């Protein structure tokens, strides 16, 4: 199996080629302009890794949550590749991907993706030899996170672009150590999206270029305000 992984759901455009043994190649640019650079990055990655497009067996793509437009650039790119190469799509949550960046952390891993206006997309994991999911993805006020994390006695690591605006709020955690992921681990990595995709492939959780959809959580503005 050779998985081409794509994530353009945050400020980082990232693509990676992974197989069962791990990373073959990865290309990340933390500089927006995703619609301009994403396809050239994929082309460059495959060339440098001397991999033919026909060798790719799956397209892994970040399904969300994240920037609506960014998610769709990734999803549309994944769909176009999946249709032309006649291979399936594996959708991976942005939070799963971030948590995998710090999987070895022995404690609670709390990825937070900035959802603007004081909100974050988040979920909890326990790290270690394996990454264990403790909760579903939700939209929360950043200020609610310390209370949620306090339910566990373990140390906690926060990861994701949400730690930049909300660092001070997130520090208010009692009786345990609070860590923040390093700036290098704190960005989305397509390699993590790709590694998480292997679990889904094993479980048969595959999508096609026809049925794959981004996962936004938030409704479009006019519908959200109507509720």
């Amino acid at each position, binding site marked *: 199996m050779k998985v081409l992984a794509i994530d353009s759901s945050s400020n980082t455009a990232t693509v990676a080629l992974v197989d069962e043994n791990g990373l073959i190649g990865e290309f990340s640019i933390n500089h927006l*302009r995703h*619609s*301009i*650079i*994403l*396809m*050239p990055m*994929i*082309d460059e990655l495959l060339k440098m890794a001397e991999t033919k*497009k026909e060798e790719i067996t799956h397209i892994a793509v970040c399904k969300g949550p994240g920037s*609506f*437009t960014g998610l*769709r*650039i990734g*999803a*549309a*790119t*994944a*769909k*176009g*590749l999946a*249709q*032309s*190469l006649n291979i399936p799509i594996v959708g991976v949550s942005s939070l799963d991907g971030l948590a995998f960046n710090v999987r070895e952390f022995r404690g609670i891993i709390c990825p937070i993706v900035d959802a603007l206006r004081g909100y974050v997309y988040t979920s909890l994991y326990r790290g270690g030899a394996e990454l264990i999911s403790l909760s579903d993805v939700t939209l929360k006020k950043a200020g609610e996170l310390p209370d949620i994390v306090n339910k566990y006695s373990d140390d906690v690591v926060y990861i994701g672009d949400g730690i930049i605006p909300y660092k001070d709020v997130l520090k208010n955690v009692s009786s345990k150590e609070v860590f923040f992921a390093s700036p290098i681990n704190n960005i989305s990595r397509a390699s993590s999206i790709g590694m998480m995709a292997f679990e889904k492939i094993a479980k048969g959780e595959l999508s*096609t*270029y*026809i*049925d*794959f*959809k*981004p996962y*936004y959580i938030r409704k*479009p*503005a*006019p*519908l959200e305000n109507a509720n």
Partner: protein
Amino acid sequence: MNKDTVVLGIETSCDETSASVVKNGKAVLSNVIYSQINIHKKFGGVVPEIASRNHIEVIGNVVKEALDEASITLDDIDVVAVTYGPGLVGALLVGLSYGKALAYGKGIPFVGVNHIEGHISANYLDGDFEPPFICLIASGGHSHIVFVKDYGEYEVLGRTVDDAAGEAFDKVARALGLGYPGGPKIDEISKNGDPYKYNFPKSFMEKDNFDFSFSGLKTAVINQLHKERQNGNEVNIADYAASFQMNVVDVLSSKLIEAARYKNINKISIAGGVASNSLLRERLLKLADEEGFMIHFPKQVYCTDNGAMIASAGYFDYIRGKVSGLDLNAIPYLKLF
């Protein structure tokens, strides 16, 4: 070129997701249009985020259906042509990203197409109409008078300085309580109205000026309506619609004819959603007959946003040597040149 060139065209600039297969720029093998109009109706206009969400959900199926209807597979496609502007940026990015990846995966060329050029190219579909001609493009997003010198060679003679013609139809329809989209509603109700009841001002009617302005007209209609309502008069919506429509048709048709005279070209055509307007068609047929001009109307289905017109424009771009890079971005305010 001895061999046929088969182009897959993809269009997602506004609220239609469309894909089409066109041979040699003219022969339409399929043209699948998924319209979101019923989704946006209740908001009185296109909501960009909702449009983008629908595009990404349906685009795979729309492309598949276009191939199936043409009874071909992706292996038979020579070029992928995609709209990259003008339009709603989030909506454009869906089709553009999809088209780039599709072409890349198949190892075939990809051509970014200007949406306005697409509307002009609707005139080439299923027929033998050829440049040079003068084209009026009027839709919800654009109003242009263009001298089409040759395939892919344009001289813009005039454009709107404020609202597009279709936008004026939508805004006036909303003020009259007719709902969205305004074009077909005003066209319909005007048949029961008196087009000479109100004499709204016409803008830029001086000679040798091919620009439009519809914002003043829209305001005049709304002001008159408020005044009559305040005076407690019985308001006949059909008279308003008919008088407004007559005004727009007077301006569009006289400018198109004037532009053709000015360029000494005896072939004219119209394109874009407003080209479906029945009064505009009727008037232009009459004027063209008086002037001895040849007039061409694209089929109704090619006047709305569709993939076939993009495939056609992409074909003529391609045979003239244009191929786009994988770094092409969406340009929401793209000009014709």
